[in-house]
């Protein structure tokens, strides 16, 4: 049986009186790449924010492997939450790099000061990941000295440095100039080839089609349709999915 990295069961979330997520269920297996698409305001970011514990869910269950973060709306104790935080990484739309830290410090500080890993190991991994992302030689630069594409690549490295089992991306190219999105998509493709488990919210349908195994279409806080990437993009069965796709591919 394939190993489940993430299991979400009947997750609901409201902001005040506004229901944003309605009994969302989602399972992600090891090595799987899941794309999430859907119109703005459909709750995609909120879903990722609940999964990464930036937002608390109202009800439902959230599990990372053997760690149950939230069981039917009841959150586990702090040590469990801390352990679960170690399992995932999140890449933000607008990078959120630490501006006062150099590239090297941005990516090594948490492994050293939070995970308390061995310095040599961390430095070695940092240099090899930077090289892989085409950022060699930028170790001592500050985020403000980098292009948006470079900043996003640093933030991907920062997430990878924590050795997550699953990596979430929330519209990783939306804050970038169109000519810079390619370099980010290339990096994510590369990660997919290395069997990194990923959940990617994106508006790049072609990219989602190529890189994702499975695509989920969300609207109004619901999963309207989900299926194999190829099927969902080429032969959507739901009217809303069809409308959304034809709109976005125009």
């Amino acid at each position, binding site marked *: 049986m394939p190993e489940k990295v993430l299991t979400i069961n009947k997750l609901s979330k409201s902001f005040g009186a506004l229901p944003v997520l309605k009994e969302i269920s989602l399972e992600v297996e090891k090595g799987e790449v899941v794309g999430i698409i859907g119109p703005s305001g459909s709750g995609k970011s909120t879903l990722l924010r609940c999964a990464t514990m*930036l937002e608390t869910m109202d009800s439902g269950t959230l599990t990372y492997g053997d760690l149950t973060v939230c069981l039917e709306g009841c959150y586990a104790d702090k040590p469990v939450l801390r352990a679960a*935080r170690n399992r995932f990484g*999140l890449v933000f739309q607008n990078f959120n790099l630490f501006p006062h830290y150099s590239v090297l410090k941005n990516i090594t500080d948490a492994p050293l000061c939070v995970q308390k890993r061995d310095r040599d190991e961390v430095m070695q991994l940092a240099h090899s990941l930077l090289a892989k992302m085409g950022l060699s030689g930028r170790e001592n630069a500050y985020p403000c000295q980098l292009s948006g594409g470079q900043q996003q690549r640093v933030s991907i490295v920062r997430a990878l440095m924590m050795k997550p089992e699953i990596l979430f991306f929330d519209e990783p190219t939306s804050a970038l100039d169109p000519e810079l999105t390619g370099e980010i998509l290339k990096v994510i493709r590369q990660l997919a080839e290395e069997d990194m488990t990923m959940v990617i919210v994106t508006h790049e349908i072609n990219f989602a089609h190529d890189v994702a195994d499975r695509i989920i279409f969300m609207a109004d806080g619901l999963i309207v349709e989900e299926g194999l990437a190829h099927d969902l993009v080429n032969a959507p069965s739901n009217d809303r999915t069809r409308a959304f796709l034809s709109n976005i591919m125009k």
Partner: protein
Amino acid sequence: MDYQIMLTELLKGLLVSVEIFVLTLVFSLPLGLIIALGRMSGNCIIRNIFRVYISIMRGTPLMLQLLVCFFGPYYIFNVHLSSEYRFIAVILAFSLNYAAYFAEIYRGGIESIAVGQYEAARVLGYSQGQTFFKIIMPQVVKRIIPAITNEVITLVKDTSLAFSLSVLEMFTIAKQISSAHTTMIPFVVAGVFYYIFNFVVAFGMGRLEKRLNYYR
């Protein structure tokens, strides 16, 4: 009038002014941070206590606060305090007053940091303390330096208010010499000294601001 003696006396006074200045900063800068955190507390009672504190400290004259700090213990608790208490009262009043101003500057700085910084830190597993001291505060310091510089320059001039408790700082001494010899010169000299003092302070703060300019 012996100018040599006048200069020596004024320089002695300047030393006391510098002492008030340094000690006030040493106490009010950290205290201001604590007050800022109280002012931003999630608990509405704590938040309001600090709000009122800041409002009173900023809404009443520093000279009045000096007098309250000096005479308060005597009139309220009937304690007799030694003459050294004069100086302590000055430091106390200045620190309590400046901490309120610094608190509002810190608060503005802290609230200006994008929430994404907290979220990135949280996802990376930083504790709240680590997030505050490693990620947030260094960025806050950079942003508030210009506002802090303003307050610090005001503080240099405000040290002269200690004359209301007859502490022998530069302004008090200038006034004494001036009335003893009916001359303006001590005031002019004191003015020059205050100006140089502030020039040095502004220069130092400017250097600090430049040093933090390595990022945006």
